């Protein structure tokens, strides 16, 4: 009944109640978002990688795929050597190079795009949305390239290495084979796919690749196959999926630490807010608390009644906050996905029930504790002294 009184008292102080609710909601939203940010990036990237079926990546020493413009030379020999390693089932090389794509009519429209040269579409670097994977002399584009140039599958486009001007550079004409969605592209990137040979020729990088994906046979351990390949080739780096995740993790630790700090700060702010509010309303009611203890209500009952206030505030504020966090996550996601160098398919905020529940539970627990402390303190005082002090 004491709890009932506390809760009804919210209505007599609407401003204080609303401000506290707003404060709790905002800090909960922050807390939930930071939990999502902390866990989201690695989780979504891990999912992205694992769905592909190529367990190893071969890259120039010291880099990650797409990391730099470095390439591996002498790939044909390298490939033979890698393929001869027990456990290697398939090697799928990829060359990345910037190209200029222009319409073949005289409209003069052109765009710069990242071209990926590869011989099959099964590496999972893109999803085919229309048409077919490119054959020699063909090119597959993303929707942006297609839209900017106004081309359709079947149209012809002209390609040249980016930056090459005039009639002297290499150039080629290709037929658009279809459209795809590029999983690892950053926002705003334009991408096309060609056959590896075609791109090597176009970009004057014969026998070079940017990286290769390696599928290993059943029953082989990625780590031991990796070791076996490295034993024969010291010009390259081989990373496992776990290794990529780890490196990505290390690179994103900045985000996670920031997220952790902000989450902690939110929690502390919420705790202080609720603690202060409870302390204020407890001290306003010291006379009443003394009287109720004199009447014979147990300490537990009184503490429970007083803490109910903070529990209710945290529950309502927390629930609003959790809802708010989903909205804010969407907004922040749209800002952060422009972060350079990260694939759009990586989501910063993975809205997950467990992040929301964790945020809510953390808040509820710390808010309750924050509310309990002043309540416990008040009931620890001597009743007679409290009555004496409160007497007129």
């Amino acid at each position, binding site marked *: *009944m*004491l709890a*009932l*009184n*506390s809760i*009804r*008292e919210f*209505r*007599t102080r609407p401003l204080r109640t609303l401000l506290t609710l707003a404060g709790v909601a905002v800090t909960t939203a922050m807390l939930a978002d930071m939990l999502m940010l902390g866990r989201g990036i690695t989780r979504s990237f891990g999912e992205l990688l694992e769905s592909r079926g190529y367990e190893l990546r071969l890259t120039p020493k010291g880099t990650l795929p797409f990391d730099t413009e470095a390439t591996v030379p002498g790939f044909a020999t390298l490939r033979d050597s890698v393929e001869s390693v027990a456990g290697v089932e398939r090697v799928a090389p990829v060359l990345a190079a910037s190209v200029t794509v222009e319409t073949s009519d005289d409209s003069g429209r052109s765009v710069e795009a990242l071209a990926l040269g590869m011989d099959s579409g099964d590496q999972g670097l893109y999803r085919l949305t229309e048409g077919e994977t490119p054959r020699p002399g063909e090119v597959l584009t993303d929707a942006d390239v297609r839209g900017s140039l106004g081309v359709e599958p079947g149209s012809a486009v002209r390609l040249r290495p980016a930056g090459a001007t005039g009639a002297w550079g290499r150039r080629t004409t290709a037929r658009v084979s279809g459209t795809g969605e590029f999983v690892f592209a950053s926002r705003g990137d334009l991408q096309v796919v060609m056959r590896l040979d075609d791109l090597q020729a176009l970009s004057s990088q014969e026998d070079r690749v940017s990286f290769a994906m390696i599928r290993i046979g059943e029953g082989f351990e990625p780590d031991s196959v990796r070791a076996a390949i490295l034993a024969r080739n010291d010009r390259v780096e081989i990373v496992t999926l776990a290794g990529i995740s780890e490196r990505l993790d290390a690179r994103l630790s900045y985000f996670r630490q920031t997220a952790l700090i902000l989450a902690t700060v939110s929690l502390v702010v919420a705790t202080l807010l609720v603690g202060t509010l409870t302390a204020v309303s407890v001290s306003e009611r010291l*006379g*009443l608390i003394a*009287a*109720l*203890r*004199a*009447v*014979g*209500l*147990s*300490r537990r*009952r009184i503490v429970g009644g007083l803490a109910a206030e903070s529990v209710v505030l945290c529950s309502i504020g927390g629930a609003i906050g959790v809802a708010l966090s989903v909205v804010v996550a969407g907004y922040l996601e749209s800002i952060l996905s422009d972060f350079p160098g990260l694939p759009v398919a990586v989501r910063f905020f993975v809205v997950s029930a467990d992040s929301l529940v964790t945020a809510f539970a953390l808040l509820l627990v710390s808010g309750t504790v924050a509310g309990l402390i002043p309540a416990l303190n008040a009931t620890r005082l*001597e*009743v*007679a*002294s409290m*009555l*004496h002090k*409160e*007497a*007129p």
Partner: protein
Amino acid sequence: MSEIVVAARDLTRDYRTGRSRVRALRGVSIAVPDGDFLAVTGPSGSGKSTLLHLLGGVDTPTSGEVVFLGRDLAGMSVEERAALRLEQVGLVFQRFHLLPMLTALENVELPLAAARVPRKLRRARAAAVLERVALADRLHHRPGELSGGQCQRVAIARALANEPALVLADEPTGELDRATSRQVLALFQSLNADGTTLVVATHDLELAAGAKRMIEVVDGRTIP
């Protein structure tokens, strides 16, 4: 007037405030028999409230003993004394100390709920007690919607809810005007006539005169 509800022997109570020590009571002995209506008077600071608190087990004496319904309070823990007060002592304060957002009925139900009386029964009992203090038509009013006299009657009803052996009232008319104070006295007299044992600390001579018995506390001692 047979059984002794509470008996105090040779009570002293020292309060320590900072470095100084105040002796609020200096050897008070008193017995309150069942059915008594005792007024405790005396100047401000003489120790009336202190005596009431000791009699009801709200406070513990520095020396001396309090025997309540045959039990020595000295041997009881804080929570045991709270439980005893809940069931056997009704307290009325100068400033009512009602919960502002609960109705009269809910305020009276509070000690019944704390004593784990089932909801239906405590509703009925609270309503009956409020009727006894002539507030049957104010059950669902909150303290803010009631006059001072009505609030004090709700507080008296709350004190009576668990049918205590003793009602202790500390300056119950301190915030009330003369006419309202008289109504409170009349209510006390009527309750006492029905068998309620009352000890009332007061400056109000009219209230004191209306009691069955009166003692005066001066400087921590009773004078007969």
